């Protein structure tokens, strides 16, 4: 499954300043593993020691917060758009900027 991933500014050091990248995975979990392979260090930023997505990071699949879907097990299909947004002070599931 090839999906488009939007990278927030604080992570762009890892992606050679790319704001959008293509990656693969049948679930968000697999996507993160794939991101780690392509951009080493990414998983540590996104996940805690137990592999859970850090509390202050919001991940959206096609504008929907994965916390309202199946968290790390949220399924992905070809062409999905995934956004990683630091929830510096909250974050919203209906962000106009994700559209």
């Amino acid at each position: 499954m090839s999906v488009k991933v939007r990278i927030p500014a604080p992570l762009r050091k890892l992606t050679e300043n790319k704001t959008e990248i293509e990656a693969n995975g049948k679930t968000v979990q697999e996507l993160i593993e794939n991101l780690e392979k392509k951009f080493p260090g990414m998983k540590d930023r996104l996940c805690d020691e137990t592999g859970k997505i850090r509390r202050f990071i919001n991940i959206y699949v096609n504008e929907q917060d994965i916390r309202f879907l199946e968290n790390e097990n949220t399924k992905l299909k070809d062409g999905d758009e995934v956004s990683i947004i630091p929830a510096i002070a909250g974050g919203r599931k209906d962000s106009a900027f994700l559209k």
Partner: protein
Amino acid sequence: MTKETVGESILDKIGNTPLIKIEKLTQGLKNVEIYAKAEWLNPGGSVKDRPALRIIETAEKKGKLTKNKSGNQPRGNHPPIILDSSSGNMAIAYGMIGAIKGYRVEMILPENASEERKKVLRTYGVKLTFTNPAEGTDGAIRYVHQLYEKNPDKYFFADQYNNKANPLAHYKTTGKEIIKQTKGRITHFVVGIGTSGTIMGAGKRLKEFNPNIKLIAVEPEHALHGIEGLKYMGSAIVPSIYNENFLDAKIPIKTEDAYEYARKLALVEGLLVGESSGAAIWASIHLAKQLEEKGEKAVIVTVFPDRGDRYFSTPLWCPIEEVVRGW
């Protein structure tokens, strides 16, 4: 606290905050005391009341915020609109002061500023524009510069990241208060850095009083973090008021530790404060332990910047059940 008087403006209640001794989280420390400046008790609910007031009053004195600034103003003789970018607290301070003084206020915020902040700002009548949350506070900074450059006559650009009145507020008030409240005993000043106004301004005052006082900045461990109000300088647009050489040390902090200690402050000390206060106390305790190991005596002063109830909708407090269980 200042004694009660009738007829004072709420603006007179900015500053002169209590210095609270942290008693329970410091149990086990023998030679190190930790105190926190209770900045959430400012009328706007955060430390930012201090720089906002000084920035606005300095502009008034310099004639930048008067009804006669320019003949090109879009609405007759209205004073220019106070404009800045903020992650929330500074915007609230401008909003409150603007309401009192009769200025219009327009603020640029990253869209992921907390809902509570947005509601408070709207209540003060502040016009809000949101920038892409993926670009963080730097995105809001870039946008506000563009907006101002297009409409210089319409706005007074307060520019908290570069306005010298920001650290000056802390030089004139925060630093002075800390010296008085500790009776000059302070040895270490531990502060989170965002604009860096607090550590640069209050720090200057402290160093002038006693050059041996150590200035220690608390900074997120990584660029991607969740501590509202703090900046990772390595990847951020660096404020011109910031001078890293002025610091004695930096303590990096994990977001999770800041959250945990913010909760502990509420549960154990009864202080409902935000995550940057959690970062401040974690770093202070971390430093205290190091000093104790070396057998040093110390009086650490830190700053608790804002109230915790501005974060109820954010990952700091949710889900609350987990917090209680975890403790």
